[in-house]
């Protein structure tokens, strides 16, 4: 080819190439145009090959420059369209919308039992007050469950706790009726004061109705030292109640009887449904009386007292030199109050639909 032929080839195909590259409406068409005009078999390559065959150096220079100019120009056109198509594609992508209201894909999560949450919370509060956890056997010797706690055989106090007895040959063995035997064991094991423990776990009584389960959970606090006073008990109960229930909850003590404490008290807290007024609140009956506290304004929640000297003697501590207090709370009762559970049996059915309501 001559210079003129090369120039003619470039002129003839340039406009076509430019139009194709600029006008391609999608990436595939653009790529096809690129291959057609700018690829190895395109007119530019053909022209470039012919340049080397020109005889004149001048012609070579001239034709070479022309090829390169056209090439650059078409490359720019190509790039511009490529960019434009990319931009348009992004705009189109950004215009898309997913149905974000479809449900999320969740992995299955387990739930804690409300009793174990409540139990852990109470233990954490007690730990904060310095009470270290303590555990003991559930199948328990009569001695630890009763005798050491000043509940002798043939004493009416035994009627306060309907007991399951264990077939033990000659030995006297029961299913523990409270966690107090752990207190006795803790005192015997520690050997000397001060001692501050929280005894917790399953306990058993021969009861089965909508408000009683034959197995339930208790937590007891025990503090033994020189010069522990009833005023200390009162202060501790107030703080304990505030941390378990709510700041500002009022605590009322009433004289009562437990064989292992003297003096003994029942501990009531002001009703959190009606604010202690006995009326209104979220569980009020039609006549306005609060159902949670039966309109009394108070809820019975705990038993407590100063450790009875007989208990110290049985646990090899000298009641002339040590005093102490103990208090006990039913975990079921707290959980039922806290979560508004009315039937205790729900707690032991383990229906997935019940358990899944708790965190």
């Amino acid at each position: 080819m001559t210079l003129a032929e090369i120039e003619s080839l470039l002129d003839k195909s340039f406009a076509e190439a430019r139009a194709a590259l600029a006008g391609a409406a999608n990436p595939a068409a653009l790529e096809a145009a690129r291959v057609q005009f700018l690829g190895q078999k395109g007119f530019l390559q053909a022209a470039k090959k012919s340049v080397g065959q020109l005889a004149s150096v001048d012609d070579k220079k001239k034709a070479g420059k022309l090829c390169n100019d056209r090439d650059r120009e078409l490359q720019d056109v190509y790039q511009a369209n490529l960019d434009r198509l990319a931009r348009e594609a992004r705009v189109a992508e950004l215009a898309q919308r997913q149905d974000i209201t479809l449900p999320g894909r969740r992995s299955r999560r387990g739930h804690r039992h409300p009793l174990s949450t409540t139990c852990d919370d109470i233990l954490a509060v007690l730990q904060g007050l310095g009470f270290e956890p303590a555990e003991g056997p559930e199948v328990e010797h009569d001695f630890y469950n009763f005798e050491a706690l000043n509940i002798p055989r043939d004493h009416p106090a035994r009627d306060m706790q309907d007991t399951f007895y264990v077939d033990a040959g000659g030995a006297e063995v029961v299913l523990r009726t409270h966690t107090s035997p752990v207190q006795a064991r803790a005192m015997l094991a520690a050997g000397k004061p001060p001692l501050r423990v929280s005894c917790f776990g399953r306990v058993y009584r021969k009861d089965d109705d909508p408000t009683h389960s034959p197995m339930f959970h208790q937590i007891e606090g025990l503090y033994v030292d020189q010069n522990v006073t009833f005023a200390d008990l009162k202060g501790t109960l107030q703080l304990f109640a505030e941390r378990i229930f709510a700041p500002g909850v009022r605590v009322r003590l009433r004289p009562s009887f437990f064989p292992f404490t003297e003096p003994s008290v029942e501990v009531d807290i002001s009703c959190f449904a009606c604010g202690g007024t006995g009326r209104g609140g979220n569980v009020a009956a039609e006549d306005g009386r609060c159902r949670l506290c039966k309109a009394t304004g108070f809820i019975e929640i705990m038993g407590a007292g100063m450790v009875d000297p007989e208990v110290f003697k049985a646990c090899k501590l000298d009641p002339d030199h040590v005093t102490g207090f103990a208090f006990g709370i039913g975990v079921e009762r707290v959980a039922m109050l806290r979560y508004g559970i009315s039937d205790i049996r729900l707690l032991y059915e383990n229906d997935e639909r019940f358990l899944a309501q708790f965190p």
Partner: protein
Amino acid sequence: MHVSGKWLAELVDIPKDITPTSIAEKLTSAGLEVEAVVDLAAQLKGVVVARVDSCVPHPQADKLKLCRVDSGLPSGAVDVVCGAANVHGGALVCFAPPGMVLPGGKRIDVASVRGVTSHGMLCSASELGLEATSDGLLLLADGEPGVVVGAPVAPLVGRDDVVYVLGVTPNRPDALSHVGVARELAAALRTRMKLATPTCPERGGPIDGLARVTIEDPDGCPRYACRVIEDVAVGPSPRWLQARLAAVGIRSINNVVDVTNLLMMERGIPLHAFDYDKLGKSGSRAAIVVRGARAGETLVTLDGKERTLVEGDVVIGDVAGEHGRAIALAGVMGGRDTEVSSSTTRVLLEGAHFNASRVRRTARRLDLHSEASHRFERGADANGVLQSLDRAAGLVAELSAPHGKENRARVARGVVDSYPRKVAPAIVTLRPRRAAALLGVAPRVVDEAAVSKLLLSLGLEVEGREAEAIRFRVPTYRPDLTREVDLIEELLRLVGMDQIPSTLPARGGEANAGLFDVRRHQALSAARRALRAAGYDEAINLAFASPDDVARFPAWDGGGEPIRVKNPLGEERSLMRRSLLPGLVQNMATNHRRGVVEVRLYESGTVFLGRNGQGAMPRTDDRAAAAGRDAFALERPRLAGVASGASVGATFDRKEAAFDFFDLKGHLEELLDDVGVIGARFIGLDGAAVVAPFLHPRARASIQVEVDGADVVLGVAGELHPDISALHDLRSQAYAFDLDAELLAVAARARVRARPLPRFPSVRRDFALLVDAALPAAALQGCFAAAPAATGLLEHVAIFDVYQGKGVPDGKKSVAIGVTLRAADRTLTDAEVAAVVDGLLGGARALGAEVRAG
């Protein structure tokens, strides 16, 4: 204990402005918890006095009458149909108008009775809740105070009363009587008791000629006294007495028995009345012998049941027959043969004191709990016997008025009183400073003067004084006050809880009782977190089991005879569980039955494997034993779970995948990782010592790990046996695991040591190996891990496909394995990688593997 407000008001000065609610509060804050306050008058609200103006036979019914009744309403008299025989014109009756509800729950409506409209009802005593049964209407006497047409009936029949329902704690026998409650109320209100010493007019002959008492068992019966009343007429009690007993929940029987019950409720001392003429005599005298029962001796008690007695029971006997017979079970119940009946004319009244423990033992053995045994068990007042007896005898005589005849009843002169074991008042020394120290109050709150004043209000007396101490004489009706601390409790009650400051004790220096295994607690916490993350809900089951449960779910680590409850709530709860799984499988079945198949549950709890060899007796002399080693049972902390349903639930764009063994295994591997157990293996149970018959033979394993050079079985896991699934009607394939939490803690060894990140690249090579179908995957993994050529370079082995079927010969399977190789100090060369791969494949070939690709 039901306490009548009217009765209380007769015993103690109650200021007029005090309401029943505030009396209840006073009693409750004194420690006598009032569980309910019942307004008896409210139950009869609306029932009024009415006059029957006229009374004619019902036109349609022979036995009915049509009455015109004037109840004082401005609208005038109304028609009432009545069936009672004793209704007559001019009668004054109790009229219940339409709209009211009677105490028994019956609602009065305007009703048509055989064609005649009846506007209300004329009531009998039983319909008003005053008597158990009645014969005809309750007629009111004209001219009696308050009997005015239109006036409320409640006060006329003794129902203008308020009943306090007390929950009396077992230490307070004194509060099982109105006098005792009145005493507390007087102390709380700072007012006085109004209790007169009873007197008994004795118009009969000397009692010595009528009765004698011998106490052969003074331990069982420290005191026995009696009086005799002659020419008694037994009959219904007057209305006031019936009303009084009804108010406190006691059924009226007859005037004699009612008097004994009245006294029991008034003074807390149970009395018993015998028909004197039915007692065995010695000469002319009734001979009472209080003695220990003979083994096998029988007695028919008042409730008509024959009781067989044992040694240790205390009986009241007489001298009838060759050896005498038992006529009453001391302190528990009288005998039928000597019961007071309508034909009784002479009564022997017993007032006695019995040994609390022995009464309790007898009552418990016979499951015979009476008002009397309830009081004697808790401790009645031995020294109040005579006063009760005097008042009772006087009342029996006074109320013995045969209808229309002269009252001839006479109380014999004197009382037989045998009192071999005198109950003396306790002398208790109180140090006011000690009281202040224990209560945490300022010394002046309970100084000597305050203490004396307070305790005197409860009937205590100052017996003497010592340096900084006062000796008090405690009345015998308060057997609970025997120690200084008991008096301090009384002071607290009287001072009031509000007067005690609130303080917080000092902290620090506490001894560690060692009754808490921190390591186990941490391991369990980690395990429970892992299970929750894997979707398991926490379950809590009762710890009982049935014999079937125990047979079907043996403990995988053995165990002895199950722990048996002697008095279970049914056979299905007669044993202590040896595994958590029966409960969990039951929970799963309940969920399935209710349509919930997606179930993952775990439980952390105690199982009871059998008896503990060191636990025959409590060992308080050994501190370590007292910390728990002397437990009667072998109690193990276990962690078990069950799962059924989907592994991954379906979503709007993905299909559900069923839960299978490898989901369970993965969950447990995660759990073991989180707890810090490293190198645990799942080992098939064929031929193993570990037994788990409740798991499906095709997929069950023990989980083992090496601890201190020995293999420890942590538990078992697998698919639930199809027989168990079928038995519980499970709706989906189920999986289960059971781990020992203590062993988990022992095996938890992991200490996290941070490693630097790798500095050189890894190389991954994948192979497909054709092996015998029975060759466990673990064998291939194991041979790779052990290959010498790969030592230090094999970072990871992953089995990513297992295939049997088309293209794979029968009896073979194709296993795709990927290995990741890396050197810590250099980039591996192709030649090095090739050498390692050669070594790995050589090992695989030694297991019979054929390399298909790689």
